[in-house]
């Protein structure tokens, strides 16, 4: 068995292993170190000995043994860690079955996204420790040098350890305040993958995949949390259009021009199944509403046959839940589909002074779109030029260029 095949075996186990060790040892650094040593031992042994029947149990036992050695060797660790706990763990009967091992990734999610850490660090820690990306990979995701990211991660780990941020799942009273932070991190990873903020490619599918994987894990761990189901549904329903979003030249293709035959029917079906329970009942959340909007787009055979009045109604709900000019912008475009471009344009113009949209290319791009539909060609060209001056992604630039030339 090759080393790569072995790596594949514990692609997911690695994060579980780290979570278990962090919760037991109360120290992310030590957990990371002994988890790596156990993985290294596996890479060394498994190709010749074969993969054990219970790979996670094997890794956990190996890592714990290494932790005990390490604590015995190192006075500073010995002084501050719950040595007795580790010893007790070792005295306990070895874990025989992978199914008996608790999944403690949920604790790790909440530690990585703890409000006592800065928001930018939440995403980095989650990618590093739950998605299992290497530090250089996390650095690439943030478009920063590896050394910068390494330093950021070290600082965050030091704060977790020195302020003693616990590895625990918030109780039911705290959960409503803490869960949105975790969901937001997964959503941000996805949006960066879906519409890269910079660079030549429109999408960084690796990040979108990681976000969906993380949302799946979280949904498995918290099956009754409707917003978790809503988030997973949203990601699946939006990602289903991935193959149709870019043309052969790498230029972005907007929803109205997409070849809907390229949409992923399985992902759409899975998203639809999730969105129903996420939406049902009182206290619906913003991810479930966004998922419902995405589902309506995915179900429509073409742009004209889309249930636009229902989409406007859902944007009304979303605007009440999360008032933001960006939601209002999307709502205005849906209104334009129901009532015509002129009322849509009036709503967009009301957003002109919103500070959140200043410097954001999608506002002039949306205006250009509606002005063109109203045959106000000169103003549309001006608005496209304004959007082009602000856009940072090459693929979106190509799409805007194309629309501008099509005006003439």
């Amino acid at each position: 068995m090759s080393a790569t095949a072995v790596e594949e075996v514990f692609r997911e186990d690695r994060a579980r292993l780290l979570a278990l060790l962090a919760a037991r040892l109360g120290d992310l650094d030590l957990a990371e170190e002994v988890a790596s040593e156990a993985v290294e031992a596996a890479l060394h042994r498994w190709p010749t000995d074969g993969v054990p029947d219970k790979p996670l149990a094997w890794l956990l036992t190996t890592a714990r043994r290494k932790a005990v050695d390490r604590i015995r060797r190192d006075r500073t660790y010995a002084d501050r860690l719950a040595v007795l706990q580790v010893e007790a763990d070792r005295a306990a009967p070895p874990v025989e079955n992978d199914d008996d091992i608790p999944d403690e990734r949920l604790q790790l999610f909440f530690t990585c996204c703890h409000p006592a850490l800065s928001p930018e660090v939440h995403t980095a820690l989650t990618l590093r420790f739950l998605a299992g990306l290497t530090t250089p990979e996390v650095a690439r995701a943030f478009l920063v040098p590896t050394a910068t990211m390494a330093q950021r991660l070290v600082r965050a780990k030091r704060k977790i350890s020195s302020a003693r941020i616990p590895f625990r799942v918030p109780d039911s009273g705290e959960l409503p305040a803490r869960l949105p932070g975790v969901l937001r991190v997964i959503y941000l990873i996805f949006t960066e993958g879906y519409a890269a903020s910079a660079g030549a490619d429109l999408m960084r599918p690796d990040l979108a995949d990681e976000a969906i994987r993380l949302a799946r894990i979280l949904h498995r761990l918290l099956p009754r949390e409707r917003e978790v189901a809503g988030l997973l549904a949203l990601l699946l329903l939006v990602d289903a259009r991935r193959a149709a979003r870019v043309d052969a030249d790498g230029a972005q293709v907007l929803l109205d021009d997409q070849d809907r035959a390229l949409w992923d029917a399985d992902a759409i079906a899975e998203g639809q199944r999730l969105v129903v329970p996420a939406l049902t009942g009182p206290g619906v959340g913003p991810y479930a509403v966004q998922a419902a909007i995405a589902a309506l787009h995915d179900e429509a055979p073409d742009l004209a046959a889309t249930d636009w009045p229902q989409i406007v109604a859902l944007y009304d709900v979303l605007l009440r839940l999360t008032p933001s000019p960006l939601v209002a912008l999307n709502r205005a475009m849906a209104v334009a589909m129901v009532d015509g471009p002129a009322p849509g344009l009036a709503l967009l113009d009301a957003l002109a002074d919103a500070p959140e949209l200043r410097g954001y290319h999608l506002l002039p791009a949306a205006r250009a779109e509606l002005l063109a539909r109203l045959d106000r060609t000169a103003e549309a060209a001006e608005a496209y030029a304004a959007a082009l001056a602000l856009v940072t992604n090459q693929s979106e630039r190509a799409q805007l260029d194309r629309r501008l030339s099509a005006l003439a």
Partner: protein
Amino acid sequence: MKYLLLIHTPDPNSQAPGCDAPTVEEFMAFHKTITDAGVVLGSNALDVEHATSVEVRDGERVVTDGPFAETREMVGGYYLIDVPDLDTAIDWAARCPGSKGGRMEIRTIWEPDFA
């Protein structure tokens, strides 16, 4: 784990209108609750009107009044507590009436064993 909860009290002159300052009774009730919980190692209210600073520069003591010429808030008191983790410390800080209108700062007591 030991944490210092610093109670930052806003300057009464710059306090936003409509923001109710906590009452003495609220502080007394909180003081009893946290003391009864057995987590308090030390606690005091501080004089928020007077402070003295001292710096040594080139071997010379420089003593000044203040500092608070510009500051909008003062440390009005503190609790030194011993609790298992940061979440518990945050919980106590949030329950302290000083968090209403003012701000609680949580500092970890540094212990030399921590790398």
